[in-house]
């Protein structure tokens, strides 16, 4: 009896200790993010103005002489490049994910799995080099398109993996039910499995999108950067274009104090964008689970 009480007490204490450790690691995970957000907002908040959202950057002289300057072209460029990446990466990534999940016996499957994991772990700058060779060299110019291709290389392996796990989560019985009523394999995947996995698929795409949207390295020698707004918007596809992560970097390493502040402000915009994407992904997942 006495021994029983002892062991229960011991278990209770162990439980407290384990729970305490969990809380501690939660705090440790959250702290860097909160510090970053706080620091970026404090330093960049003053630079957020109407001009910041409606003007192009121009030369450093503009900022130093107090003339209107901003990052409108950068934000538009980011949207254009990121969406090009999305358009390229989603069909390819989802296709690869379907292959990984639905055709485990196919000869290409193990090859694809290794290649996809390798691509996922490859440094982003190498993906930029790949896009440089594939797009920039033949076109003879840096371009938003090249940036989109480089970011697509970032997104594809993530989309493929999240697609795979979203599809795997759907019970095998659904596929058999589809086959049993005489549907071909591809039709079963397309019309019964994929609709059932829709939330997971969208969440995966959002996560990949957010990851790619924060990448600067693949854009350095693909979309290259631009201080000005192209004369018309197609210039953002076929010519050098500015993007937030890369502009943040080049503002930060510039020697001008005014540009540093703008860099922080660019950080606020980029963080907000990425956080919105992640929250959307989170909400979608939660809706699925309830």
């Amino acid at each position, binding site marked *: 009896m006495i021994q029983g009480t002892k062991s229960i007490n011991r278990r209770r204490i162990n439980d407290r200790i384990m729970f305490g450790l969990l809380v501690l690691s939660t705090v440790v995970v959250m702290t860097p993010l909160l510090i970053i957000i706080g620091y970026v907002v404090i330093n960049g908040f003053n630079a957020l103005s109407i001009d910041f959202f409606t003007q192009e950057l121009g030369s450093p002289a503009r900022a130093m002489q107090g003339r209107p300057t901003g990052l409108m072209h950068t934000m538009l460029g980011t949207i254009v490049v990121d969406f090009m990446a999305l358009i390229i990466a989603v069909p390819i990534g989802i296709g690869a994910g379907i292959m990984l999940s639905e055709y485990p016996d196919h000869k290409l499957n193990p090859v694809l799995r290794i290649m996809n994991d390798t691509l996922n772990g490859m440094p982003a700058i190498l993906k930029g080099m790949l896009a440089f060779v594939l797009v920039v060299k033949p076109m003879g110019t840096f371009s938003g398109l090249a940036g989109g291709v480089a970011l697509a290389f970032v997104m594809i392996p993530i989309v493929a993996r999240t697609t795979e796990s979203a599809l795997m989560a759907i019970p095998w019985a659904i596929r058999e039910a589809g086959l*049993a009523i005489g549907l071909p394999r591809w*039709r079963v995947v397309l019309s019964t499995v994929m609709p059932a996995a829709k939330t997971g698929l969208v969440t995966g795409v959002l996560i990949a999108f957010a990851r790619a949207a924060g990448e600067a390295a693949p854009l350095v020698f693909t979309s290259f950067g631009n201080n000005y707004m192209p004369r018309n918007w197609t210039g953002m596809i076929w010519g050098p274009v500015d993007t937030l992560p890369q502009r943040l970097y080049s503002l930060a390493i510039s020697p001008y104090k005014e540009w540093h502040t703008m860099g922080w402000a660019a950080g606020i915009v980029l963080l907000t964008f990425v956080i919105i994407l992640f929250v959307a992904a989170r909400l979608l997942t939660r809706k699925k689970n309830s």
Partner: protein
Amino acid sequence: MNFITNIKKNKKEPTEKTSTSAIAGGEGVHPHDVRMETKNLSVMYGKTVGVKNVSLPVYNEKVTAFIGPSGCGKTTFLRALNRMHDLTREAVVTGEVLLDGLDIYAPKVNPVTIRRKIGMVFQKPTPFPTMSIYNNVVAGLKLVGIRDRKLLDEVCEKALQQAALWNEVKDRLNTPGGSLSGGQQQRLSIARALAIEPEVLLMDEPTSSLDPLSSAKIEELIHDLKTKYAIAIVTHNMQQAARVSDYTAFFYVGNLVEFDETKKIFTNPSNEQTENYISGKFG
């Protein structure tokens, strides 16, 4: 796309339909129309034997029950009848499965065509989660490109009537299939199988996840359906086999121990193992 990796086949002339009545053996077995028939059918999972050398007829307009203890191979056997093992890498099917005298495992036979003729109902109800009741029923037609709304409406009503579900759902055909109760979902799965008008209906323990009332409904349904189809049903429940089937096959560790008229199996089985199982001495 070649799912079958290893089907060993012995090349023989397609056998006459009637030649199989002999399998049933015992007197009093009438040579009904054989709809399906297996010849030395074996299924191996790697080195594990699923079923071994089973030769068995499935008669038209009759219900054939497969009984036996867990792991005896009855479900494995049933799934071989519409090539469901094609998707399992390790499973190797040997021997022949004849549908109307033609081997469904022959090299040029498309499993998709076969499965349209041989419908299947599973142990657990499997409505397509994102589809409405209506779309669930007509999925087998709509998803292969049949768009004629009037035809689909007719098929939907007819299949749901046959599955004894129409009266319960006719006013809410557009609600999700997942919103139905378990028993209704199972009847929905049956309606979906019937909508493609198969010739043979395979049922894998169709009532095992249902309450007694829903089970009774499904059993009634099987009774009604057998006027039109050849039905093969796997069941754990011997009373159920006795109630719904005309023929019974008793499986034990991958072997077909005995096949005969249900009446005979349950009253006067010729094999001792069968008798022990039927009388509850094991299993």
